[in-house]
Structure formats: C-alpha cells, structure tokens
C-alpha cells in the first residue's frame, strides 16, 4: 500500500511537469515524421508521395530486405531520440524529485509516517521510473505500430526496448538520486548525472577504440585500465546496441559493401567492432551495470537514513 502510494504520487508529480508534455510532443512529432515516410527501392516517399527523394544511397539499399530498412530507422530512433534526447530530458525532468521530497516541511510529514527511510527512498526511486516508463511505452508502441502498419515491418523484439530504456535511464538516475539526497539541489543533480553519463560514454568509447584499433592494445596498462573501468561503469551505450540487436536492426557492415566501393578497411574494422558489441553478453552488460546502480542506491539510502531534516 505504501509503495504503491509513492509510485502513484511520483506519477502525478511527473505529469505535472511541463517537460513531460514537451517530451510527449517530441515523440508525437517523431512518430508523425515516421508515418509520413515510406521507403521504395531507390527513393523515399514523403507525405504519401507529395515529395519523392531519389538517392543513390537508397538505390544501394534496394538489395536489402524491406524490414532491414525499417530497422535502420529503429536504430536511429533508439539511439538518438530515446537513448540520448529522451534520457537527457528525463534526467532534467526527474532531477527535482528527491530535492523536492527533502524540502523542509515536506519531508517532515513523510518521515512521521510508519515507513522506513529505505522504503521511502526506494518507493520514490521506483516511482520516478514511471516517468520514463510512460514515455518509453508510448513512444516504442507508437513507432512499433507505425513500422508495422506503414512499412510492413513487424519487429516484436523492438518492444523489448521499453524495459531496456527504463534500465538505461536508471543507470543515470541513480547518480541523480544520490546527488539529490546529498546536495538537495536539482541543479547539482542534473550536472552530476549528466557529467557522469558523459564519463560513462567516454570510458566505453575508449574501450571501443581498442577494439577498432587492436594495435593500441600493446599498451597493456592503458588497455587493462580501460577493461576494468568499462566493467565498473554502467554500459549505457551497450544498452542501445542491445536494443538494436533484439530488435533485429541492421548494422553498418550490412550496408558498407553496397555503399563504399573504395578503400573501406577502416569502416570494415568499425563494422566488425560494431558486430562484436552487438554480440555482447546481455547478462554481463545488464548485470555489471546493475551492480554499479545498486552500490550507488545503497550509498544514497545510507545517506538518507543518517540525515536529520
């Protein structure tokens, strides 16, 4: 009963934020844009044939299966719209949840209720996920239906993007929650979580470079440090690869031979690295990231439990 009350409250707080509706509008615009497009061999129809764009690029793609073209859109949507823009907006929108919870006069009433501080924290934490869950469900189902109805590409695996997106958000949000408890400031929470997100991406990017340029591995110290760091931090980028993989999305290597006729060794290596990333073990990717998240949450709860308000 208590946990559910906290989740419902977080949901109400979510939809009270303007950014919730801004995100909804962005999602509708992206959905509408996808709906207006259709792919034909050698051309793209925009607005149901009002405009037609003919390109060599899509001529080259004509050899691919129809649903593979759809998955290019899936990958782009996942990576950019949800993986970056969506999560960034969600972080901004939810950064104030814990600071507002801890405001003097607000926290007093909550702590006087027969609920432990750990439970209160976790209830609010899980409730904050409702914000992302709502958007993820709305957007993924919307685009899933558009790809199926409009493009004829039904990709059930794409629906797994919903839990993956919530997971991706939670990796960053744990930092925000800890900062909210520690500093009681939404601004500090945003700065810290975004900063850490960039660091996570940087560490993974460096790890990817070692795969793309194997000769770099000769520097054992740097290479081992990158492996350890990569193991510790949440694999935010890998989540989008995982989503792409489970959706059945195409990778660059499927397109490279059609697109590039010249020297494409660098692109092939990048494509190979991309394939390796997509063949990553989900248990490792999700599990090790969850370990990081749990440690941060445990630290935040410890802090929350010790503070006077």
């Amino acid at each position: 009963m208590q946990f559910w009350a906290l989740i419902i409250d977080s949901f109400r707080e979510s939809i009270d934020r303007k950014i919730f509706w801004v995100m909804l509008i962005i999602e509708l615009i992206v959905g509408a844009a996808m709906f207006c497009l259709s792919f034909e061999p050698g051309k793209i129809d925009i607005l149901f044939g009002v405009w037609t764009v003919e390109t060599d690029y899509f001529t080259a793609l004509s050899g691919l299966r129809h649903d593979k073209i759809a998955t290019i859109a899936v990958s782009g949507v996942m990576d950019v719209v949800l993986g970056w823009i969506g999560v960034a907006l969600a972080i901004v929108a939810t950064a104030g949840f814990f600071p507002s919870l801890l405001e003097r006069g607000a926290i007093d009433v909550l702590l006087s209720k027969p609920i432990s501080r750990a439970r209160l924290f976790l209830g609010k934490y899980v409730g904050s996920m409702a914000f992302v869950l709502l958007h993820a469900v709305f957007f993924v189902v919307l685009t899933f239906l558009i790809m199926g109805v409009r493009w004829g590409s039904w990709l059930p695996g794409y629906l797994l993007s919903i839990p993956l997106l919530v997971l991706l958000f939670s990796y960053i949000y744990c930092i925000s929650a800890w900062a909210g408890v520690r500093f009681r400031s939404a601004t500090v929470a945003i700065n810290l979580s975004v900063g850490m997100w960039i660091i996570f991406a940087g560490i993974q990017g460096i790890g990817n470079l070692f795969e793309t340029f194997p000769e770099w591995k000769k520097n054992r110290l740097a290479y081992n440090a990158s492996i350890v760091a990569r193991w510790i931090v949440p694999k935010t980028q890998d989540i989008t690869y995982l989503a792409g993989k489970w959706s059945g999305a195409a990778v660059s290597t499927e397109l490279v031979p059609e697109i590039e006729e010249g020297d494409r060794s660098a692109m092939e290596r990048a494509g190979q690295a991309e394939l390796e990333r997509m063949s990553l073990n989900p248990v490792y990717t999700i599990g090790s990231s969850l370990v990081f998240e749990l440690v941060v949450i445990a630290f935040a709860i410890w802090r929350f439990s010790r503070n006077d308000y």
Partner: protein
Amino acid sequence: MVALTEMTNWAVDLIDVRKTYAKNIQALRGVNIQVGRGEIFGLLGPNGAGKTTLVKIMMTVVRPTRALGTIMGRPIGHRGKLAKTGYLPENHRFPGYLTGLQLLDYYAALAKVPRASRRATAPKLLDQLGLSKWGDTRIDKYSKGMMQRLGIAQALMNDPELIVLDEPTDGLDPVGRRDVRQLLLELRRAGKTVFLNSHLLSELEMVCDRVAILVEGLVARQGTLSELTEHTVECRITFSGDAQPIRGKLAAMNATVDGDLVVLSGHDSAKVNALIDLLRAQGLLIESVVPHRFSLEDILVEAMGGSTPNPHHREKRVR
C-alpha cells in the same frame, strides 16, 4: 516487558532526550517531559529553545543523540505507533500538484490506513475543517489558512491516538483559530492526546491541561497551569497620597512601592488586610485592590531569565 510499558499512563514519557548537532551545538540537553493520556499538552519556549527539534525527534525526523522513554508505551520511533500518531509540522509544504482529497489519501496510505477508510474519512475531515468545497482543487490554489486546515486534516486521517501539532494556528484568522481550538477540545473529549507546540501563549492557556517551558534545551517549568501560576500571584493596590514615610514598613512586609502602586507578592489575605490597614493608618486613600495572577507569558519571561515574578520560584525548576 512490552505489556508493562503499554500499561504506563503517560502517552509521552520522554527521558533524557539530548541532541547535539555538528560543531557541538547542543539543541537539547536532557529533556524530561511527561504527557498524560487524553490531555492537551503545550510546549512553549523562546526561539531556539529546541522545541521543534524535540518534536522532530518524537516524530523520527531528527535522530536524537540520546533518548530514553516511550511514546504511547513504545520506544521513540516505533513504526507501529507512528501509524497511530498524527503530525502537523511547522511551515509544512505539501505537493502543489495534488488536490486536497488526493493529498489526504496519499498521506493516509503511507500511514497504512485501508483504502475504504481513507475514502470515508477524507470528505468528513474536509467538511469538519471547512474545506468540503475544495477537495477537488489543486493545493497550489489554496490560501495559507486553507493549507493549515488541510495539514490538520492529514494529521487526523489515521484516527491517531496522539496528535502532535507544531504551530497549528499559524496563518489562520481569528475565526480559524477558534475553530482549531474547538477541534482540539473535541479531540480531548474523544480521548485523544494532543501535543501542542505554539508560540501563541494565550491559545495554550485556553486549551492546555499541562505545559512545559523549554529554555536553552532544558525544561525550565512543567506542570498544570495552576501549578505553574500558584506562586506567581500578587496583589496590586493603588492609592493616593504620600507613602514615603512608610517605605521601610512596606519593605518589611515584602511589598514594593512604585509611585502610587503597592505590589504585594502572594495571595495571603491577612497580609493584604494588614497592608491596607498600614496604608490607611498613614492617611492614604485606597483607590483599588486588584489580585493579579501571572500569565503564561509572565512565567515564560521569568523562565527565560527576564523579570522575576517570584524570586523563590527558581528553586522549583525541573531538570
């Protein structure tokens, strides 16, 4: 053991409550307070005395450095008893995105009140506190007085045995204050215990059975209002004429002269009569004889080390 503690008559029995903040700031230095079941208890003291810290310790908002004793027969912070305690903090902030009814339902759910009971109780309380038309209105549209009434309503949603109210009439107009006083009296009639923290001494005088005065983290006085004021009665006699020749005799009777006013400590009628006889023998005209009982404010000021109604009273300090 549990059964024994449950049997105590005290609703609140605080023993040696201490709180030391960072930089060795001692907010509470060993507070002992006892509140009987079914009574309205008032906590008063100057700013910075530690009143709010004490209330927050009782409600587990602040962790004590040391705290013995019980609340409703259980150790301070016992979760089960918190479910039967209502609390209105000072300067509370409620989420503006909720309506009045949603807020009551939310906090009551956190207090483990069953859904059916929440649905039935919330409208009744809103009606009782004059907010029946505002139940479906967002809280950010409420005035300060309405917010205060709503805060009291949320403190009562779980049908508490103990209600802790920190400045409950803050922001209320005179009618609202009277309504709250009536509500407090109704709660007492219903057998509830009310722990009241207010700086409005006149209000405490009107409703409280017992009070404690907190000064610099210690209980300076504690007892019923009559107990606290029994030694703080004086007789004020105004006269016309010159009392200078009998100043020495007046001093011998423990009476002080200030212009045309003579003040005699205590309420011994024989002494009052003797004083009147003395004044009349001097040919002074008695204009008025007024017995005066000190107010709670006088007691508080005295406890704070201000003007002293009765110098002997300091010995009765409760430590």
